[in-house]
């Protein structure tokens, strides 16, 4: 399988008032086409920085970021992004919000086709009938669903999700996990998901990457082989418990609360 995203030895530091702040150091990541990788790590270790590098919003000090066999040197329309903050435009209807990327990237779709596609995506995430509402009329979870549709409207190769469900309550979050699976089935994408929720990471992704504390490097990679469609019950199997324990332990190491060698605490 072809590697769609490839990050090689990336190093990056922010220039702050108190000198350079190294954020990434020796980061390696590769995501095959159609793969879905979750990235977990201590708060402030550089996860959002990683997404900005992949999206071409910044250049790393050293190392290389490759997308589709091409080195990333700037923003590219083949990327879709969603953040913890849904950032919907209050003055537009939900439908017009979803259509926003098509006003930027070149598209072969006619106006009518574009609108049909937006309606299809909104229905897919369960927002049928809300097309003409304003964002302020929607709940947090619904806004996040709309923001997901906006990230997908231009059929991006890569979907970058930076803690998109972080601000939602547990039940809404689980609903959205199921939605993500349905979306991926109908609209296949290659994804990078940043998350703080280990259950979310093993439920959604087929590979979980643990980053070390700042400056972040790739500390641990856990494969989560997929056997058939996942259901929430899968999170309560002994196998899932094992995986969560491994990840928990790795996070503790990353936070410096457990020694790098030795058993789980």
């Amino acid at each position, binding site marked *: 399988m072809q590697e769609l995203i490839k990050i090689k030895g990336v190093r990056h530091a922010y220039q702050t008032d108190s000198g350079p702040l190294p954020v990434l150091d020796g980061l390696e990541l590769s995501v095959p086409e159609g793969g879905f990788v979750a990235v977990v790590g201590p708060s402030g270790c550089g996860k959002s920085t990683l997404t900005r590098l992949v*999206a071409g*919003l910044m250049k790393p000090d050293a190392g290389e970021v490759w997308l589709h066999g091409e080195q990333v040197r700037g*923003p590219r329309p083949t990327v879709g992004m969603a953040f913890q903050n849904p950032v919907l435009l209050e*003055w537009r209807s939900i439908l017009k919000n979803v259509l*926003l*990327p098509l006003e*930027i990237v070149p598209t072969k779709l006619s106006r009518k086709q574009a609108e049909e596609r937006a309606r299809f995506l909104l229905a897919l995430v369960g927002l049928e009938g809300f097309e003409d509402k304003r964002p*302020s009329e929607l709940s947090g979870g619904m806004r996040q669903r709309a923001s997901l549709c*906006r990230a997908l409207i231009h059929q991006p190769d890569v979907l970058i999700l930076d803690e998109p469900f972080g601000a939602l309550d547990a039940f809404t979050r689980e609903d959205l996990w199921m939605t993500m699976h349905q979306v991926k089935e109908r609209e296949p994408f290659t994804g990078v998901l940043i998350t703080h929720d280990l259950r979310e990471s093993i439920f959604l992704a087929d590979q979980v990457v643990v980053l070390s504390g700042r400056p972040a490097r790739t500390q641990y990679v856990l494969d989560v082989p997929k056997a058939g469609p996942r259901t929430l019950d899968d999170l309560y199997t002994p196998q899932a418990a094992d995986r969560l324990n491994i990840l928990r332990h790795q996070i503790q190491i990353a936070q410096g609360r457990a020694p790098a060698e030795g058993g789980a605490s």
Partner: protein
Amino acid sequence: MTARAAFNSVAVPLLALVVFLAFWEWLVWFKGWPTFKMAAPSDLPPAYSRHWDLFLTMGWQTLWRTVAGLLLAVVFGTLLGMIMGFSRIMRDALYPLLVGFNAIPKATVVPIVALIFVGQHDFNTVLLAFMISFFPIAVSVSIGLSTLEPEYRDILRALGASQATIFWKIALPKTLPEFFGALKVAATLAFIGTNLMEIVSPHGRGLGALFDSGRTNSDFPLMFAVLIALAFLGIVLYYIVVALEKIFAGWAERSPG
């Protein structure tokens, strides 16, 4: 809006106005003030009917010059706000200058302006209305732009959108509520500017000049009538801005409760 709410939004301010006028009339009667000390509301209709043609022409002169100054302030204030909103360096450089300029009492500027552009009365008046009213607009636009959350920029920038596109599609509309808030302040300020010029450096034009002639002729009801006419014009302009705000930034309004 329900019929009841519509009724309230008209009837309540009207009622307040009637109460205010009644109190004023009563106060003048109770204190026994003569008209040269304080005119009563009942003195106003005669003043208006005696000079109605003057009120119309002078009122129009005051109004168009105020609106012209305000439009200039909108254009210049928005440009200045954009410059300060997008560039940290320009913000640091221009803010102190701007604050200092705004702190200068505009009454002291009137003779200077009148001296520089001798005889250009329309121009001077518009200039003063402009000078007094662009500050809140510049500040609100610059704050609106500089506090735009980075994610809003990023959703478009990640797709390769230019700075201009980001400005038109996101930054500008997102700043509109602050802009209109400032425009309401600026609209009333612009009136102050116009009248300062008309009163301090009278040229026989505008309501300010009418006020001044009332003063020289000791026609106190006329002076009060001018003040009320000015208040009326101010209210009209204010509500025009409110109407524009409803059209262009109505989305920012949250229904209470």
